[in-house]
């Protein structure tokens, strides 16, 4: 009984928090809402006319949506980089960053699911995928594995922070016995979601560009670079806009993670490039298309040649502690890395997998305006969700939101 009462109070309080804020906050939320509405309008056009309004074709049958989905799974998985030391290794520095990281994971997962739904040809029959009502092709289809691990991860990442915040809201300490097992599970789970997502592509013998044993590990390395990089940027924003205290030490520790992951990612990139170009076979054509263009078709060149220099540059700069500890340089590098990996793990991975086609035919892919609209809309949705989560969490952590406090004030 009491729990429900507290829950009700929490919901009311958090609604109260998220609807109040500075002018900047309202402008931010207003802009996000507008972008989401534009995205929904674009999606309604897509629903009406079919996926033909996108740039996809029988040749390149996955595009911007699945690219973003793949990338965001990585971002979601990266939350674990913060969970692990905090909960398991008891490294106190990370504690505040964890709530933000997990909030980011939740937002990223919601975006992932939105991108998958946006990519579906028949969203009205998605219930066919619900185990029990529909037919779930488990364990044969990696997509069913992905559905399970993504939703499971979403559940874990909602429940752990919720439990902690719920306790803090009541002014109590969270019991370690309850949340630590969940945190440990989520560590393994995070590796799982990204590996399973990599296997989604890796398991296709039809696509030599993906059918390569390094794909999974490289997914992990790039995710653990891009995810914490995004967290650093978000923490920087939170630091300057709220009273939430995040010590430099925390950010520098995360920067360390970013650096190591980016270095490993770069080594793997070199290994991949060596394999494709030292002794090129018929299977290297996708890589040729990606980096140099094939038969005069070269739509991806500007993208990949933006990504690779940014990636290399950021990694090299971050390697030097002197630069890494300068916050301005760190933020710039994190931004570079984030953009570079977004291109690499999105466009640079999904699209060339389809080019050339099974019989060597090349049809190029460029997203249409509607596709871009839906994509930006979904990113706005993610930002919106994250802002709400972060604002509530920060409120509770700062002690502005308290069950007891409110009770006593109303009495």
């Amino acid at each position, binding site marked *: 009984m009491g729990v429900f009462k507290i829950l009700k109070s929490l919901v009311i309080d958090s609604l109260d928090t998220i609807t109040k804020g500075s002018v900047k906050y309202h402008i931010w939320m207003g802009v996000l809402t507008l972008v989401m509405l534009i995205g929904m309008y674009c999606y309604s056009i897509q629903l009406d006319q079919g996926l033909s309004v996108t740039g996809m*074709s029988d*040749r390149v049958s996955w595009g911007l949506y699945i690219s973003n989905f793949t990338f965001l799974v990585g971002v979601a998985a990266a939350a674990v980089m913060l969970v692990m030391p905090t909960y398991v290794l008891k490294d106190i520095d990370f504690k505040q960053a964890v709530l933000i990281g997990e909030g980011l994971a939740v937002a990223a997962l919601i975006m992932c699911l939105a991108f998958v739904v946006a990519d579906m040809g028949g969203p009205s029959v998605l219930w066919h995928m619900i185990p029990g009502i529909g037919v779930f092709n488990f364990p044969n289809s990696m997509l069913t594995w992905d559905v399970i691990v993504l939703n499971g991860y979403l559940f874990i990442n909602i429940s752990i922070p919720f439990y902690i915040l719920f306790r803090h809201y009541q002014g109590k300490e969270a019991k370690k016995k309850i949340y630590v097992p969940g945190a440990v599970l989520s560590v393994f789970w995070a590796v799982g979601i990204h590996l399973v997502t990599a296997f989604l592509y890796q398991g296709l013998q039809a696509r030599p560009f993906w059918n390569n044993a390094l794909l999974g590990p490289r997914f992990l390395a790039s995710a653990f670079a891009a995810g914490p990089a995004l967290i650093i940027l978000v923490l920087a924003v939170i630091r300057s806009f709220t009273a939430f205290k995040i010590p430099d030490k925390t950010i520098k520790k995360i920067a360390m993670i970013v650096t190591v992951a980016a270095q490993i990612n770069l080594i793997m990139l070199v290994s991949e490039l060596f394999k494709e170009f030292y002794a090129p076979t018929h299977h290297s054509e996708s890589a040729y298309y990606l980096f140099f263009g094939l038969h005069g078709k070269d739509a991806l060149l500007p993208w990949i040649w933006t990504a690779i220099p940014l990636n290399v540059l950021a990694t090299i700069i971050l390697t030097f502690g002197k630069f890494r500890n300068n916050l301005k340089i760190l933020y710039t590098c994190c931004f570079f890395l984030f953009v570079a990996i977004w291109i690499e793990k999105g466009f640079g991975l999904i699209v060339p997998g389809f080019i050339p086609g099974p019989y060597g*035919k*090349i*049809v*190029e892919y460029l997203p249409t305006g509607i596709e871009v609209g839906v994509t930006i809309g979904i990113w706005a949705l993610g930002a919106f969700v994250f802002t709400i989560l972060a604002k509530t969490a920060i409120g509770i952590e700062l002690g502005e939101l308290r069950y007891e406090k409110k009770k006593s004030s109303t009495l």
Partner: protein
Amino acid sequence: MFSCKEEGEYHSITDKIEAEQKPYHGKLTSEELLADTQLIKITEGEHIFLIPERKGQIKSFACIECHSKPLAQMRGLDGKKAHWDIKLNHANSETMNCATCHNPDDMNNLKTLTGQNVDLNLSYKVCAQCHSSQFEDWKGGAHGKKVAGWTPPRASMTCVNCHNPHSPSFETRWPVQFNTQKAIERKDDLDH
């Protein structure tokens, strides 16, 4: 190992075929589909199958209605030349003329190189003299087409159902399709 994942029993499709093969006597037959076609049963080696009857399809059969005398006796007479429209385009003129296949002494029949009569319904025997590899393939079913479906009884078209015996090779022509959407998609030149 990979291919055994689902089947469990067989390694490959050939193993499966070997293990489960059995002459088909199921409920599906081509009888109904063949009902409207006049067919002749032939036996060539181990192959027994049906081919379409031919003589009923030739408009000016029987030939002896005009060719009342052996060709040698008719030659040189004035009068309209029959079959003026037939241009022989089969091997070359040193190898073949009308009488290589048609029996000049018995115009209702074809003949073999050694002068044996061959019924017009069984004209494939004449073709088979030179085109032996095609004949082998045809008997087995690798050359030519079926009259109806895949189900037994087997009824195969005979040589002259597809090839004009006087000009047996296929002509060049334009394809019946051009996919404009595909061309646009690939940004190919539309005017090939």
